[in-house]
């Protein structure tokens, strides 16, 4: 990670470096020495800008730094008077025995000034310590900055207060003319944003919220939030704009990666790779290198997306060709390649690491040769060089992944609980790696092919993993992919290599058995069938027959989409191998062709030993009864392949057939024309739960029923009687209440005696 970040950034500048962050490596020194142009800028280091900056900060800081500020003012004036220029080399610090960093200055500089400078540094550190939120960001920004000037400008938005006061300030920097300044500005901004982004979700207040009365603190908070948001927005917009400019792409992509997830990062990289022409390729090389390092560091346990972006790289083959016309160089190269390829076994013995080194050496040599040959065409040469470099990185990554996969992963998978395991298996990068190998197979060096094929063979057979835990075993799809890649590699090299592919056929033959429709990827199977069986050379009759038989058998086992792909392949095989059509006929003499194996062995693992020529394709008769109309028609058309001349199915590839029949493609619209007619009932009466009238008569006991009814009515009568009694009770209660009210009124009217008597009477009544 550290390396990745550092690479494109110019080395740090000594004076402002704080002790704990000093990481001045030889590399940096080397860099400065090499790039004197950059270093020249160091001259401006300790002039107005820094002082101004430091003082600014100090000014805002604390009262006691006021004094320092005063001193600095003095120092500044001193320096101004002197008008010093520091030699770039002298600017490098010297570490004393006491561990103190001493910056060599031009001797004219007074001791006092130097002391003050040191003090100022201390002050800066103090400040760093006190600004809680931003220290890290600032430090990082500082250490990363190569030039004082850029630092000076970029630092401004670093402070929260500044951001608050002038949200656009930071973004404004990015409009600076100097590209480097802009870059650094972006960098520091990204650091700042990362640090000050609050842990909660923020958004702009709605209008309603704005109307409400809020406390001062909330208002302040809100203001801060909204300024933060708007400046962040501006920053992102800037990033988007800059992304289109070639010189900024890498930087912007990197910062974008910091903010967004992997996905956006990948899209950014993709656009970087596809628009290579705009930036000349340097960014590509760097990006690819970074990814390579990344894979190396993380030991191939990364998200597949990180490798998948390689697929978007494009390598211009014409580059070499145009040169070959001029320099006749590629002919030589071709010869050289072929010469090496004659002895691939020599390479097999070597381990991966060495071959990779060899590859690098080789490419370097080639580059040198190209350099000499085409020195008059610098542009093409340059691009060629970069391309080669990129390619070497890409293949380096790919081979690393392959090697990683072939290695037994028992102990590793036991200890390494990567979160990626769940979703992508133990070899998350293998699938995109194989895809990439397939795509760029024509660019692989021939010397390297033997090794590649060997490891692919090993992967395809899954041998190396047989003793390891089942989790780390390669899946069927991955193994199929290995076969596919092997074939692609061979084909793209025009079958120049004389490698025996029989092993891959055996693997495919067995993998068809192991394939499970929902578990494994059908597209991969279909592609494998297409590349290995439908295309390419004529097959051995035994092998073709074995595959025909196996495909037919497995189409009874597969779902419809896979079965269709198998049938398409089967048909293709039958069409190209006339003798295999004997499988369609059940003659007693068929055994004469079967050769060494007289009886069909369905479980045989080697297609050549299966004796499939002795079998008959009975499966097709059952497939004619398949529920899927497409499959049943395909099966019957295959059955009549000898007699009829059909064009159907001829054009489709297994892959296409698979896609057409997969459930995602299903429209669920039945063919109405066939359905509407002829749906009349042939034999009208069928057995039913109830048959006719016999149940129309009530079968229960009449007496029971009578009892039920009487109970029912008794209950209802009880209820109604209850209700009427209640009604009566209610009316009585109300009348009593009324009377009591009346009594009270009467009392008020002072007619006591009568009232009392009435009351007594009333009570008696009840």
């Amino acid at each position, binding site marked *: 990670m550290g390396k990745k970040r550092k690479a494109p950034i110019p080395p740090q500048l000594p004076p402002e470096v704080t002790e704990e962050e000093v990481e001045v490596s030889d590399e940096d020194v080397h860099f400065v020495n090499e790039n004197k142009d950059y270093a020249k800028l160091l001259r401006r280091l300790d002039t107005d800008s820094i002082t101004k900056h430091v003082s600014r900060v100090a000014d805002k800081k604390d009262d006691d730094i006021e004094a320092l500020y005063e001193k600095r003012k003095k120092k500044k004036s001193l320096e101004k008077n002197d008008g010093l220029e520091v030699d770039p080399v002298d600017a490098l610090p010297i570490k004393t025995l006491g561990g103190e960093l001493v910056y060599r200055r031009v001797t004219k500089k007074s001791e006092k000034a130097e002391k003050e400078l040191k003090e100022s540094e201390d002050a800066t550190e103090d400040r760093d310590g006190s600004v809680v939120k931003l220290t890290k960001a600032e430090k990082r920004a500082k250490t990363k900055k190569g030039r004082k000037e850029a630092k000076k400008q970029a630092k401004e938005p670093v402070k929260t207060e500044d951001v608050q006061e002038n949200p656009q300030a930071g973004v404004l920097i990015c409009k600076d003319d100097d590209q480097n300044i802009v870059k650094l500005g972006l960098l520091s901004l990204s650091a700042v944003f990362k640090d000050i982004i609050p842990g909660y979700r923020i958004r702009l207040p709605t209008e309603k919220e704005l109307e409400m009365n809020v406390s001062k603190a909330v208002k302040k908070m809100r203001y801060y939030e909204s300024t933060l948001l708007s400046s962040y927005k501006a920053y992102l917009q800037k990033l988007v704009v800059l992304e289109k400019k070639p010189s900024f792409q890498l930087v912007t992509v990197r910062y974008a990666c910091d903010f967004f997830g992997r996905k956006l990062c990948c899209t950014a990289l993709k656009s970087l790779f596809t628009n290579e022409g705009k930036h000349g390729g340097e960014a590509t090389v760097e990006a690819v290198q970074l990814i390579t390092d990344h894979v190396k560091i993380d030991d191939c346990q990364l998200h597949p997306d990180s490798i998948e972006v390689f697929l978007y790289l494009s390598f211009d083959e014409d580059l070499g060709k145009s040169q070959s016309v001029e320099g006749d160089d590629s002919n030589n190269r071709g010869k050289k390649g072929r010469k090496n390829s004659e002895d691939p076994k020599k390479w097999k013995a070597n381990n991966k690491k060495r071959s990779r080194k060899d590859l690098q050496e080789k490419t370097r040599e080639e580059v040198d040769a190209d350099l000499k040959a085409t020195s008059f065409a610098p542009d093409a040469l340059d691009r060629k060089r970069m391309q080669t470099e990129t390619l070497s990185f890409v293949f380096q990554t790919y081979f690393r992944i392959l090697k990683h996969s072939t290695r037994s992963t028992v102990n590793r998978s036991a200890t390494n609980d990567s979160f990626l395991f769940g979703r992508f298996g133990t070899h998350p990068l293998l699938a995109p790696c194989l895809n990439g190998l397939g795509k760029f197979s024509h660019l692989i060096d021939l010397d390297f092919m033997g090794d590649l094929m060997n490891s692919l063979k090993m992967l395809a057979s899954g041998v190396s993993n047989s003793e390891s835990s089942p989790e780390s075993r390669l899946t069927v799809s991955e193994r199929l992919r290995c076969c596919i890649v092997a074939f692609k590699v061979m084909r793209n090299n025009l079958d120049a290599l004389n490698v025996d592919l029989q092993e891959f056929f055996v693997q495919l033959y067995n993998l068809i058995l192991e394939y499970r429709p929902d*578990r494994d990827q059908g597209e991969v199977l279909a592609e494998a069938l297409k590349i290995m069986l439908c295309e390419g050379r004529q097959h051995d009759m035994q092998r073709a027959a074995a595959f025909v038989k196996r495909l037919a058998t497995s189409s009874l086992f597969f779902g419809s989409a896979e079965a269709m792909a198998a049938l398409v392949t089967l048909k293709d095989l039958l069409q190209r191998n006339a003798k295999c059509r004997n499988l*369609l006929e059940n003659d007693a003499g068929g055994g004469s062709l079967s050769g060494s194996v007289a009886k069909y062995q369905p479980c045989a693992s080697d297609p050549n030993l299966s004796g499939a020529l002795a079998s008959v394709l009975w499966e097709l*008769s059952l497939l004619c009864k398949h529920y899927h109309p497409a499959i049943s028609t395909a099966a019957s058309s295959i059955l009549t392949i000898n007699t009829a001349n059909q064009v159907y199915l001829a054009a489709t590839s297994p892959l296409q057939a698979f896609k057409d029949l997969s459930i995602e493609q299903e429209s669920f619209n039945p063919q109405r024309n066939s359905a509407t007619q*002829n749906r009349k009932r042939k034999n009208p009466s069928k057995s039913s739960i109830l048959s006719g009238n016999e149940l129309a008569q009530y079968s229960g006991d009449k007496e029971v029923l009578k009892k039920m*009814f009487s109970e029912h009515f008794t209950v209802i009568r009880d209820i109604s009687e209850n209700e009427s009694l209640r009604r009566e009770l209610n009316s009585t209660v109300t009348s009593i209440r*009324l009377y009591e009210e009346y009594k009270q009124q009467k009392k008020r009217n002072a007619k006591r005696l009568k009232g009392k008597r*009435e009351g007594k009477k009333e009570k008696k009544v009840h």
Partner: protein
Amino acid sequence: MKMRVTTIQDPEFSKFVERQNLEQLPRDEAHSDGEDDTSDGEDDTSDQDMVDSNKGGSIFLKNNVLSHSVIESWSEQVMAQQNFSVLPNLLNAYRAACHYGSEDGFDANSCQRVKHSGALCKITMFMLQESDGIFRRMLGIGSSSCKIESILGLKNTEKWKTVKPLIKSYLRSTLFLLDQVTDSEILVFSLTQLGASIVLFAAFPSLLRRLIKASLLQFICGQLEEGLSHHLHFSLYNVRTITLVVSNCRDTCLVKAYKAFLAHCKIVESCNLKHLQFLVDSLVELYSLDVPNSFIKSQVSIQHLAMILLRGVKTKKKEILQRIYNWQYTNCIDLWVRFISANIRDHDLQALLYLIIQVINGVAHLFPWPRYLPLRLKCIQMLNRLSCSSGVFIPITSFVLDSVEYIGNSKPDATLGKDFNVSSVLKVPKQWLKLKDFQEELLLSVIELLSIHFSQWSFHISFPEVATIPLIHLRQFQEKVTAESLRRPVKRFIDQNIEFVEKKRDEAAFSPKDLESVESFVQLKACGGNAPFVQYYESVVRKSLNQDTLKKTRQASQRILNLLSFISLKTQKDLFIS
């Protein structure tokens, strides 16, 4: 009354009361008016003419207290002397009985007169039992079978005009009774009687609607208690007759029944399995009455299911997936599977068949995870059913073997709780997967499903090929599994299969392309009934038969029958081979 006494004694108090009443009265009246309005609204407009027709009767009634003897004499008159003049009285009494206890003013009066529950009982029984016959006699139509047209044809005659109010009164009262009573015995009885006179309903569409509603309500909500299943049968019978007789109500009937089913099938527990099963069977029955018509309905429904599935496949969103792996969805599919397999032999339902198979495949495809194994097993079951009924080939072995994959080395000590029932879950908790009981259960059902599939094609000429890959996988499985309890059934299965496969390796004299001879080969092999193999399937299926559920039983017995018929053909074997 008592209040009246006091008021008389105290004139001043009476004045007070009057004053109080004056204050209260307006409020009360307004209140009661409102009530009346709503109750009127519930009744349909034709209520008026019935009351009119009853007026003569009710005057007569008011003078007589209904007693047992009175009713006896009335019914005697109607039944023996064919004197229909007292019928309105009977009907009014019946109405009073039906409305007995309800708050109607008219009934409150009459209720006063019917003192004995015995009398009420008598009148209700009599009317329910006899009125259908009486009306038929009055109208002069045949007793049992009668077409709706004959009723509609009578509509303009003089006879109809006199009888109509009576019929209406009877039907209304009975429907009212249906709403009132809760006792299932009474419900069954009245539903049956209503069912008998269903033709009469044809003239009153609004009443018919009420009948459908009531019947469906009973049909759906009735609990399937022991011995009361016939109750449901009767409601079903009613609905069925309605559909048969009144064609214009068929659609509403079907739609309502389907909707009620949908609402009812959301939860499946071991206790309501039987009821659901019954519901499904009845719905299939209803839909099978008019297949061309229900074809369209089922197509719409299946397409709806398919659309949900499609969205699930495309988006893989959790909320859509939840709409798929619930009981409602599964039961719906099951319903249509049953409908299709019940009718596919007699009707051209190929389009539906294809659709539903794709939907089921899609569901199985969408939930490949082990936790959804019960759902997948159900899918396979349905596919098997479709395959058996339609005779098409549906590959299920890959699904089945997928399930086997999860059967591994279980924890031997951990056992499942007592409430273990795979048939009532779609998704199992994760910890179940490791349990021995669950795995055994799973294996048993896997073997059952496989043997159903194999037994279907066991006499097809390409059977060895059908069995090849599953056999290879099963053998691998057997090597992998260590627990003996899991091993044994598989071992038997494989042995039997191999035996059969080897025996079947013979030479037929034709090629796969001669489809006709392939068909005849099916017969030929049937003659050569391969006893151990067939017996094995039989035993597997019989085992599942013993296990449970009506559904399985049917399926199993069907299979046994088929197998037996194969065996019986054995005698002709020699003829063919020569």
